[in-house]
């Protein structure tokens, strides 16, 4: 390069550079965030990793001459290169990938299609549909698995056959072997999980679509582009970041899930990496379980990396500009009645039915007896009859329920808001730091807790924070055992991936010009964030909040270790009722949980949308 004359000395330039880095609050915040993330995420991960290299006392019996706590390759060798590897790792891993890819493809397709119909088309009954569309995510996946079985269950595995099977038997079809692959195994699992996880795509893509100015599409239309071409060349690229975020969430969740695979896979011995992980964990083979979790984290990190590459290599499309936008709906034309009809059927079967079944079951005195005399509201409002439920009163008269309700509400609201807030800030960093080292780092770090098994995560946090945390003799964090603060830290960190994904795809759409304009006008970082970034990102904020809120509401494994006997929550109460052989009361609790989530979602939807429209119009 040609030698240039420098008006400033090298030293002065360096000093200016350092000053501008240090005095920029953005850099300071990024630094703090990375330190915190390393502390809260990398440390636990390291703890897990080091556990897999330490010989446990219980495995001394398998390693002759070993000593507990010493360094060992026993677990990794056993997992990766032993005669057990195929049945313990390879086969389940292939099954996991099958489920992961299958669910991702189906859920992205379904979620995007629904989001487009709901946001961009002139579909009728939109207020109803947009509420209904999110219900599947609020229903626990085991409820859906049971609903699936109650329809397709075959007589081979005993118990009461499903609806289809009993119809076939009545029609004289005795050979029902063809039902087996539908009732259990990968196909069933993919369908049920798709019905659960399309909500991620729907929430993220619809938030992105909402902010697309339809002028872009209209321009193309004026130029003579057809509907398909507009969709392919304009709409799709604009929502691609949101869709890719959804792919990551869906794929990782699908390979990490356990309940549905247990219900629908067990009868045909279909096992995945996640079921192996749970089995090992429940068999006290903690080290092997951790090793499997680490492999799953590695797979997911790879998918995040690929995603970064995909988005990083293409141009950025900022859709939220300074100008006011309009949203003109696209006519479905002759397809309108047909699509409406299909959606109505879909919601009736896939969404309303499981809810109705749940409600009916909560009002049955004895399980499985369908008669009017069996109808009761005891489990809801009963005063305590020694013959029913061992004398425990119905949930609304039970002080335990009220306590759990209060705790759950506190937990979900505080953590939902805190988690979303941090998620948006981290999302902002991922978006603004895209292609840079710190952006990639934050994006990867934030994602790790997603795949650390909840029990392990909760356990490690319990250990970390039960003692005061200090560095060089200076106490930084007091002992948090038994405090609400510990519950908050754990749930917020565990759910950061949701919030920050929502934040990233959201922030990527906000044009940098807006901030630059404010910067020229002299607005500092905080002012810009509060006055510009935050108001424009409300839609993403709300979808991020919903994702966390719903997830924390259902959380049991994560917080059961951290809660004390007196800080019970609704999922814990449901678990207890289930244990006491009282599924009806358990269903009542599930319905209450569902209602809260639904109510919050409805409110967010109504007020959120109204606000969003206003801020966009101005």
């Amino acid at each position, binding site marked *: 390069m040609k030698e240039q004359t420098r008006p400033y000395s090298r030293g002065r330039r360096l000093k200016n550079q350092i000053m501008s880095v240090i005095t920029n609050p953005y850099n300071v915040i990024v630094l703090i965030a990375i330190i915190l993330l390393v502390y809260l995420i990398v440390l636990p991960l390291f703890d897990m990793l080091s556990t897999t290299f330490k010989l446990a006392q219980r495995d001394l019996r398998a390693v002759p001459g070993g000593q507990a706590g010493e360094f060992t390759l026993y677990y990794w060798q056993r997992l990766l290169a032993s005669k057990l590897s195929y049945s313990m790792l390879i086969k389940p891993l292939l099954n996991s990938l099958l489920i992961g890819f299958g669910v991702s493809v189906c859920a992205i397709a379904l979620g995007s299609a629904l989001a487009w119909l709901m946001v961009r088309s002139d579909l009728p009954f939109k207020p109803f549909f947009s509420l209904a569309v999110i219900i599947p995510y609020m229903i626990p996946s085991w409820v859906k698995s049971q609903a699936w079985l109650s329809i397709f269950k075959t007589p081979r595995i*005993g118990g009461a056959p499903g609806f289809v099977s009993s119809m076939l038997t009545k029609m004289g079809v005795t050979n029902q072997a063809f039902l087996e692959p539908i009732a259990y195994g990968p196909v069933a699992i993919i369908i049920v999980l798709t019905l659960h996880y399309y909500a991620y795509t729907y929430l993220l893509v619809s938030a992105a679509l909402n902010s697309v100015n339809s002028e872009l599409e209209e321009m193309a239309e004026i130029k003579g582009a057809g509907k398909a071409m507009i969709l392919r060349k304009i709409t799709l690229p604009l929502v691609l970041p949101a869709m890719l975020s959804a792919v990551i969430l869906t794929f990782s969740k699908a390979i990490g899930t356990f309940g549905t695979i247990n219900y629908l896979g067990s009868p045909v011995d279909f096992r995945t990496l996640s079921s192996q992980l749970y089995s090992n964990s429940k068999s006290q083979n903690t080290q092997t379980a951790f090793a499997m979790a680490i492999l799953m984290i590695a797979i997911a990190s790879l998918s995040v990396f690929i995603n970064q590459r995909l988005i990083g290599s293409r141009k950025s499309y900022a859709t939220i500009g300074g100008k006011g936008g309009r949203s003109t709906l696209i006519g479905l034309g002759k397809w309108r009645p047909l699509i409406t009809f299909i959606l109505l059927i879909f919601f009736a079967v896939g969404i309303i039915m499981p809810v109705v079944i749940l409600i009916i079951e909560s009002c049955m005195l004895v399980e499985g007896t369908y008669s009017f005399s069996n109808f009761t509201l005891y489990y809801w409002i009963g005063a305590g009859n020694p013959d029913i439920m061992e004398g425990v009163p119905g949930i609304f008269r039970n002080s335990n329920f009220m306590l759990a309700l209060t705790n759950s509400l506190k937990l979900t609201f505080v953590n939902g808001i805190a988690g979303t807030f941090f998620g948006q800030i981290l999302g902002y960093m991922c978006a603004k730091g895209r292609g840079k080292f710190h952006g990639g780092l934050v994006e990867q770090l934030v994602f790790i807790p997603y795949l650390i098994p909840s029990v392990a995560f909760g356990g490690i946090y*319990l250990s970390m924070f039960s003692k005061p945390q200090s560095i060089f003799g200076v106490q930084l964090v007091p002992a948090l055992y*038994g405090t609400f603060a510990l519950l908050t830290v754990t749930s917020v960190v565990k759910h950061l991936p949701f919030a920050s994904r929502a934040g990233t795809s959201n922030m990527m759409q906000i044009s940098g010009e807006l901030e630059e304009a404010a910067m020229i006008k002299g607005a500092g970082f905080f002012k810009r964030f509060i006055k510009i970034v935050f108001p424009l990102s409300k839609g993403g904020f709300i979808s991020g909040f919903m994702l966390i809120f719903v997830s924390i509401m259902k959380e049991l494994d994560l917080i*059961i270790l951290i809660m004390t006997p007196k800080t019970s929550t609704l999922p814990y109460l449901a678990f207890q009722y289930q244990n006491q052989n009282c599924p009806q009361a358990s269903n009542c609790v599930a319905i209450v949980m569902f209602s809260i989530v639904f109510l919050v979602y409805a409110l967010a939807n109504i007020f959120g949308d109204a606000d969003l429209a206003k801020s966009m119009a101005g």
Partner: protein
Amino acid sequence: MNIRKILAALLALMMVLTMAASAEALTAWEEASGIYNGDETDEELYQKALEEGATVTLYSISSRCGKVADAFMAKYPGLECVPFDISTNELLEKVTREYDAGQHVADVVHIKDQDGSMYLEYVANGIFYNYKPTEILSHIDPSYTETATPLYIELTQLFYNTEAYPDGSPITNIWQLTEPEWKGRITMQNPLDNLSWGSWITGFCVGDEPDRLAAAYEELYGEALTLSPECENAGYEFLKRLHDNQPIYCASSDECAEAVGTPGQENPPVGFSASSKLRKAVDNGWVFAPVNLYPDTGIPAVNTLYIVEGCEHPAAAKLLVRFMMGGTDGDTSGYKPFNTLGGWPVRDDIEPAEGSVPYAELNVAGFDANEIYVNYNLVRDFWQMLG
């Protein structure tokens, strides 16, 4: 990371040996709590409990712990009992993490020692203590109290559908399960899935159980059992043949029971399930009965009580353990919640629940904590290898 834990682990074997000798110097807590003293009376402990904080926390794998707590508080006014119902895996994780962090929350733990690890890891390392109230133990067969403070016994039993087989069980000898007729018609939980089923299959491969299985085979078919090359004894051979018969794995023990017990089935399966499902049968309208399998139904699962090292309420903890075990004054209200169908008392002076088959009449394998513990991983890996 935790030096105390590592040291404790290093000393594990040594401690097992020295514990037998029991001539060791007591720790400060052992001294203060008098954990080895089983001769205090309820009244003495009650007074001490009131002085030491008047509260006691119970971690239990049974949902019935809530009732126990209520009964305890009714009997001992002024004492608070905080029950926490939690499943095995989480209980162990929670209690060890809290212990390592110096948070003495749980005083008493109720759990099953299914694979011997409670005794050989927790008791041997001085994390849990087997409190031995002398008077109560005099009513219990010493074979149960060697490695445990036993509460009650549960079994893994084979169930059949009584509506489809009104003349009695289609299976009486355990080897019949390996016949082609039952291929794909046996429900159970996958032994890989948790500690209790893993321990249960281990039970068939250790002690004198393989010999009993081999004898039962000969009795049924009139010829000696030939072992497959990979099977070391009749226990492994039984597991291999059972696995070859493609059992249907259920997601939970309840599901196993439901699969067998649902009325109106044309060709119902038979299935292994926890004996405690018996108490749910009437409520759920299940039509099933347990089989007194020959030579036996496998190892029992003994529910056991432990007092946690360093706990702050040792007197109340002892009082609670005594109360749950049925006490000494004839008032068995602490044991009553556990005395149901499918659970058998260990005390000779407590009658089992009405309608129970006496435990002595049931064919059950012997339980040796050491044998199960040493072989557990081998047998689990064997099952994993099968596919």
